[in-house]
C-alpha cells in the first residue's frame, strides 16, 4: 500500500483503504496556509475555479450558504478585503453582519474574545477575522465553535490573499510548480509575504524575497525562500514579481532612510520591467502607491494582473466560505 504523505493525513482521514478516494475537506477553519497541505491548497483553488463562473451570470447568486450567518469581524481597517468577503458571502446567499473597530479592543475595555462571544451569541456560523495582532484568529478558534477564517492577522498570515495570488499565477502562468516568484518590500511586517511564501513553496515554486535587511529578516530563510537585497539582481530570472505596498506609517521606524531612496532602489519601473522576461507577471496586493513601489505605467501595463487579482479574490473567498461551512456537515444540521 502506498504511504500517504504525513502532511495530508488530516485530509485523508477515513480513507484508510489507501485507494483513490475523492478528496474530502475536513477543516472548519482557515487560519493560514502554514497548516494546509498542498492537496488542500489545490482543492481550494479548484473549488474557486468552479465559483468563478457564478460571477459571470446575470443573477450572480447560488444558494450554497442560504440560512448561514457570516460575521465579518474587522478589528483592523480594511476596505477591499472586507468588501470582497462580504460580496462572496452574499453570492453564496449567506446573511452577513459587519463589525468594525479601530485600534486595540483592550483599550476600549472589551477583549477580542468577549466581542466574538457576544456576536456568536446571536447565532453565527462563520467568523471572518481581520486583526492587528498575529495569532488572534488562532486564539479565537480555540474557544469558539463556529468556523474561523483569517482575513489577515498582524504580520502573520493573510491566507485568502495568497490563495488569490497563487490562483492568478496559475491562470496566467499555467501553473506554479517550478516557477520563480519574487516578493519585494517590507517582508518583515508582511502577512501577504508569509502566506505567499508558504503556499508557493508547498506547490513547488521558488520564492526569492527582496528588500533591505531592515525589512528582510535573515531567519525568513527557514520558511524555504531565498533572500536578495538587490532587485536588479533577481529581475532576469523571475516569472512573477509581487510588489508589496510600502506602508508610509512605518517611515519613522528606521526601516529605511527615505521613500525617495526606497523607490529608486526597490521600485518597479519601466526600465526594470524591460530587464525581466517578456511575459513576467506583475502583481500587487493593493492598495498601490503609484510612484513609490511601482510606477503607473507598470501598474497599468500589459504585464500587470493587479485588477485580475481583485476579481479572483472573490472566487477564492467564495470557495473558502463554502468549504469551511461544508466541513460541518449538511446545512440543515442544527
Amino acid at each position, binding site marked *: 500500500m502506498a504511504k500517504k504523505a504525513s502532511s495530508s493525513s488530516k485530509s485523508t482521514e477515513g480513507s484508510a483503504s489507501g485507494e483513490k478516494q475523492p478528496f474530502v475537506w475536513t477543516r472548519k477553519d482557515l487560519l493560514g496556509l502554514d497548516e494546509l497541505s498542498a492537496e488542500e491548497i489545490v482543492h481550494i483553488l479548484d473549488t474557486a475555479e468552479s465559483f468563478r463562473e457564478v460571477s459571470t451570470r446575470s443573477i450572480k447568486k447560488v444558494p450554497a450558504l442560504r440560512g448561514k450567518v457570516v460575521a465579518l469581524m474587522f478589528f483592523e481597517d480594511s476596505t477591499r478585503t472586507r468588501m470582497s468577503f462580504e460580496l462572496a458571502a452574499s453570492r453564496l446567499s449567506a446573511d452577513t453582519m459587519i463589525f468594525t473597530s479601530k485600534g486595540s479592543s483592550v483599550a476600549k475595555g472589551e*477583549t*477580542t*474574545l468577549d466581542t466574538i462571544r457576544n456576536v456568536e451569541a446571536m447565532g453565527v456560523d462563520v467568523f471572518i477575522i481581520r486583526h492587528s495582532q498575529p*495569532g488572534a484568529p488562532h*486564539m479565537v478558534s480555540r474557544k469558539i465553535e463556529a468556523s474561523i477564517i483569517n482575513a489577515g492577522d*498582524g504580520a502573520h498570515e493573510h491566507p485568502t490573499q495568497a490563495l488569490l495570488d497563487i490562483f492568478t499565477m496559475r491562470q496566467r502562468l499555467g501553473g506554479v510548480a517550478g516557477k520563480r516568484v519574487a516578493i519585494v518590500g517590507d517582508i518583515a511586517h508582511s502577512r501577504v509575504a508569509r502566506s505567499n511564501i508558504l503556499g508557493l513553496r508547498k506547490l513547488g515554486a521558488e520564492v526569492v524575497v527582496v528588500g533591505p535587511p531592515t525589512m528582510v529578516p535573515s*531567519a525568513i530563510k527557514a*520558511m524555504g525562500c531565498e533572500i536578495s537585497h538587490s532587485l536588479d539582481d533577481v529581475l532576469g530570472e523571475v516569472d512573477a514579481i509581487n510588489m508589496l505596498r510600502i506602508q508610509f506609517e512605518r517611515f519613522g521606524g528606521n526601516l529605511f532612510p527615505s521613500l525617495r531612496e526606497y523607490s529608486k532602489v526597490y521600485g518597479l519601473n519601466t526600465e526594470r520591467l524591460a530587464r525581466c522576461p517578456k511575459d513576467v507577471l506583475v502583481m500587487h496586493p493593493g492598495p498601490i502607491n503609484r510612484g513609490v513601489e511601482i510606477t503607473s505605467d507598470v501598474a497599468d501595463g500589459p504585464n500587470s494582473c493587479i485588477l485580475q487579482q481583485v476579481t479572483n479574490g472573490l472566487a477564492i473567498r467564495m470557495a473558502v466560505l463554502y468549504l469551511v461551512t461544508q466541513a460541518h456537515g449538511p446545512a440543515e444540521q442544527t
Partner: protein
Amino acid sequence: MNDLLITDGRVIDPASGLDEVTNVAIADGQITRVGQVHPKSRRTIDAAGMIVCPGLIDVHVHCREPGHEEEETIDTAAAAAVAGGFTTICAMPNTHPPMDDETSINYVIQRARQADLARVLPVGCITKRREGKELAEMSLMTEAGAVAFSDDGDGVANSSIMQRAMQYARMLDVVLMQHCQDPDLAGGHMNSGAIAVRLGLAGIAVAGEEIMLRRDLELLERIGCRYHVQHVSSAGSVELLRQAKAEGLPVTAEAAPHHLLLTDAACMSYDPNYKMNPPLRSARDVEALREGVADGTIDCLATDHAPHSAEESELEFSLAPFGIISLECALALYVKALISSGAMDWPALIARMTVNAARIIGQPLGTLAVGAKADVTVIDPKRRWKVNVNKWQSRSRNCPYDGWRLTGRAIATIVSGQVKYEA
C-alpha cells in the same frame, strides 16, 4: 524535649557537605541535633526513603501585593511556596505602587508575618517608581528589611544610575538583581529567530540581554558590589558569566525552570502561557543553561513565579502579559531538567535551591547546621504526580505545565520548626 524529630531520611546539607541517612531534631525553631540520635520529641516524621534538606529558597517571586491582589497575595504566594517545598521566597518590587520606600517594605514584612507560612523577604526597587531615573532610598529600605534591590521587569538602562546604584549597594553590602534587557532592543513578544518570523511576532534578541550584562560587568569590575543576574536566558550570557567569574567578579546568577525546559517552538500555538520575559530561547540556549547550572556558572534556581488573571490569559499573544506561575511544581521541573537529564545529582540540585540562594541574598538560611533556623523540606524524590493547576494554592492559573507528569515533590515543609505544609 524536642518539638520535632525527622527520622531515617537521606539528610542532604550542602552547606556542610553532609549526605547520609540519619535524623534531624528541632526545638524552639532551631536545628538542635543532626545524627543518629533519638531524643524525646513531641512529634516524629518518618522520612525513610525521603530526602531531608534545608528549606528551599526562591529568590525571584512576584507576590503581586500590593496592587494586584486579584492575581496573588502575599498570603497565597506564601501558601504556594510551602506547597512547593519553599520556606523562603523573595518578593519582587514591581507591585502597584512599586516597593520603593521603607513603608512598602514594612508592609510586605507585616503581611508576611500575618500569613505566617513561608518567609517572604522583600526586594526593594533600585530606582524610584521603577522608572530608572532616580535612585530609590536604598539605605532606608535596607534598614527596614529589604534583602536585595531590583527594578525587575526592566533593567536599569541608564549607565550613570546603575553606577550609582552599585556604589550604594557596595556601601550597604546588599545585592543588586538586574533584569538584563536593553530597552531599545526590547518591545518584542518572543525570542527573535525563525519561529518569531514565521509567526509574525516581534522578536526579543539575545543581544538585548547580553549588551546590558556586558555593560554591568564593566561597571562591576570598577565598583565591585554584589551583583546578581536574574533569569539568565541565553548561551551568550552564560559564557559572559563564566568569564566574569573566572576573573573573580562578585557576580551571581539564577536560571528559571522554563528556560531550562522549554524552547521558543512552544510559542507556535500562540498560547500566552509560553510568553515569558526573557523569552523562551533555542534548544542550544537550554543546553548552555543546563551546563551553566551544572558547572556553577549559574549559582541558583529561581522560578520568576508571575501570576496573571484568567482574563489576561485570554488575550492575543502580543497583548498578553509576560510570565507564568510555577512555585508549586518548580522542584519537580528542576528534577526533570537537571537530575533526570543527568546534568547533576540531588546534593548539587539542593545546593542551588538552598545555601547558594541564601548566600546571594546574604541571609543565614539554607543550612541544617545546629543552631540554624529550622527551615526544613522533606522531599519524596520518587513520587510521580500530575500537575493540576486548579488545585493549587496560588490565586492564578497561568501555567504551561498543567497536565504534565512529573517526578519528585515536597511532602513536608517546615518553617522555624513548624510544619507549614504536609502532602
